[in-house]
């Protein structure tokens, strides 16, 4: 397997990694960079647990080859909180019960981030569409919808 030198930005930090051609972005993040906040629930792009933002767009990192991320910017769940402070989306998930087992949570929160970056006060319908690629078996999604909606309110008020 030929290896490739990949340059990418992960959570604001420039990285250079030698990776085999068949390495997925999820593997690169989890195994090479130790960013295990990105979860892998299926490896086939079905569950959304491995969602990260690639240049601001949510992608299933299990379906993206590491080489495809060359020259791009990746945001993982580890890069969302600023210092000790949780990001408002994280804070809303914590407060409103949007988290149970937590396995889908990083992907959910990043999908929500991609939505709220574009749509400040999304409707229920917009929230549901934006998160429709992220499966959750624990919550029934209701508190996730509420958390995203509340995070949108807080973000558009510009406060935490």
């Amino acid at each position, binding site marked *: 397997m030929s290896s490739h030198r990949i340059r990418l930005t992960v959570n604001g930090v420039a990285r250079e990694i030698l990776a085999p051609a068949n390495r997925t972005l999820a593997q690169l993040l989890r195994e090479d960079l130790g960013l295990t*906040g990105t979860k892998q629930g299926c490896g086939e792009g079905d569950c959304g647990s491995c969602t990260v933002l690639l240049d601001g767009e949510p992608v299933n990192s299990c379906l993206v080859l590491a080489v495809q991320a060359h020259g791009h910017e990746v945001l993982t769940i580890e890069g969302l909180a600023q210092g000790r402070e949780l990001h408002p989306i994280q804070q809303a998930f914590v407060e409103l019960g949007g988290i149970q087992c937590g396995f889908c949570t990083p992907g959910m929160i990043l999908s929500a981030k991609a939505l709220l970056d574009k749509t400040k006060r999304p409707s229920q319908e917009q929230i549901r569409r934006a998160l429709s690629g992220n499966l959750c*078996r624990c919550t029934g*999604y209701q*508190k996730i919808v509420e958390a995203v909606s509340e995070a949108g309110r807080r973000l558009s008020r510009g406060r935490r």
Partner: protein
Amino acid sequence: MAAKYDVLGSRAPRLDAPDKATGRARFADDLNLPGQLYGALLQSPHAHARIKRIDVSRARRLRGVKAVLTGQDLPPILYGVSPARYDEEVLARDKVRHVGDDVAAVAAVDLETALEAVGLIQVEYEPLPALLTAEQALAEGAPAIHDLFPGNLCAEVHQEFGDVAAAFKQCHLIRSGRMVNKMQDGAFLEPNACIAEFDRRGNLTLYSSTQAPHYVQRTAAMVLGLNMSQVRVVKPYVGGGFGPKAAATPLELAACFLARRSGRPVKMGFTREQVFLFSRARHQFFHEMKIGVAKDGTFLALEHRCTLDGGAYSSFGIATVYYAGSLLGGPYRLPNMRYDGWRVFTNKPACGAQRGHGGVIARALFEQQLDLIAQELGQDPIALRLQNTMQAGDVTCNDLNMSSLGMRECLQAVGDGSGWRGKRGRLPRGKGIGMASGFFVSGAGYPIYRSETYHATVTVKVQEDGGGVKVLTGAAEIGQGSDTAMAMIAAEALGIPLRDVRVESGDTDLGVDLGAYSSRTTLMTGHATKEAAEDAREQILQALAEELGVVRGRLSIRRGRVKIAGGPVDIGPLRGRYLKEHRGWTDQPTGRELSFREAARVAYLRQGTIVGTGKYKPPPLGGEYKGAAVGTSPAYGCSAQVAEVSVDLETGQVFVERITDAHDCGQAVNRTSVEGQMEGSVSMGLGEALFEEVKFDSKGRVLNPSLGEYHIPTIMDMPQMKCIVVESNEPNGPYGAKEVGEGAIMPTIPAILNAVYDATGAVIDELPLTPERVLAAIKKAGQNKKGGRRKG
């Protein structure tokens, strides 16, 4: 009025939520040990075959391979869930019994090498007839899947309470019906994963994504020939379980053997496909019921038969076949009940326990029939149920004791909360509203192996600085929120704020806890936690009383402050000592009351580390008959739901538009978590009602072993849910608390079935409610023409 509790009943954020929201929470697959190897399994491509020969020589020779094991390399020890039905081998010796049965295990320096080695193992199989349905397995002359069970009958149950035949003679109305579901998958988001490591003294540590560290510890010790004390099972954060992770897996046990063989840590994980092939999820049930009622609607008799397609091994299935009958004992008064159940081995992945263990499909059929009975009697479905519901103090015909039962309150709550009266019978064709009730144990009354063991032991260690306490428990946080619940119970019992309690859990070295199954943790581990916290509190207050020279009875702790009744006491000297110890610290205690911190510190200074202990096991429960243990519990949760649906009459597609849900959890420990369990239960029930089905081809291979093809509810499928928490103050629960984790799923399927009937007039006896099935049922009901049965 002052709130009854300072901590309980609040909406405190979960302790683990910040770590889970930031990616810090570590799950089994996130762990790595120095020098670890990667394991992989060779699994059978045949549903039923004899193993004639296995050649591992090429695999062993592959560079980077450190261990290769087959069944012949392992001790010939059978294991399983129920000791009377140990029928599993870690790796098959002579025979494979389903596609995916484990045949060989490899450990290598990386996963790619391990997988390559698996591919180099050559197995010569002699295929046997694959028995893929209960009917085929029970047929005359069918080959035995297990030599121990000729005829392929894994278990049978025959129970009669009261006199069913005589009761039917008294009935004004008798209705019969049947219901069949499909095998389900747990579909937890985290595939099973583990790492096993032996130290140089032969002690094993196994990190695993399990719901039941204790059972895994026990099984691993038995199979590996170790004492339980030499085996430590540690559960990191677990990405959901719902039942299928409640027993030891061949994955875990193979990792242990490979680690022992190689002398290095071995990490293993199931792929998503392997999760489907291992299964242990909901059985396929074939239920038939005959229900008789008096003229006024009083329930008189139930005759019930059920066949379970169990798959290749017993797993939890003995409990399942009993639960499928016994859980109909409540929540209604039903004086006469007969149940005949059969669990059958087939050449498919083994079924086991899944949320609502054993009772879900039985409940679906029973509650569907109740609605049809209500209609024939001209009664409102809620009124019929209210008329027949038991109340606290009642005992079911099969000796289950209703120590609390908020069934009536649940029924009224969903009636009022959904606007039932304004909608039932008034919706246009294609729109429907239906309801159902549910009932479930709050912890199995007995362990899965016969034992007088405590079901939970808990230690509360008071930190030596007095700044807080640590709850140490083997209980399994799998997402349901048990860590937070135990912290809240400890905080309440000690009289301190929640932030001063930390929890360490899921580690068999911390105590005995039977695990996260049968909705047992809140009640059972909760009792032990409360007792341990009270023990610690007593030791602190006793020491403080001696220090202050007052009687113990004058002292109490609330909200982190020491209250001293009956006149002023000089706390000055004690505070002075504390301040002297903490010169330069910025958060010195102030005010006229001593803080918990000062009290706990002085107690430590007097007598060393303060450790409180607690334990719980239920009192002897249940009747004398065979199988009386299954269904017993110290308490029972109950619930009611109203579903509102719309059915596309052209396509048969069902949309659930709204759910109103009430559940009696005794006392909410954490209100947000209670609702979370209710909402999660509804989603699993909705999935089973509408979509979920593990499909097999004619050779026993799973056709849809992925989360793309096996459809669980997405966020687009879930309706708005209105959750109403009913609190009946359970006398056998800690602070009155009992289950919510599983009972809440019980009403979902029948409420949807009843709503679909209301919308279309179609009685559907097969799940899931695919459009084809619903459309066929609508046509059959002759309801497709204009002017329906009762809707203009």
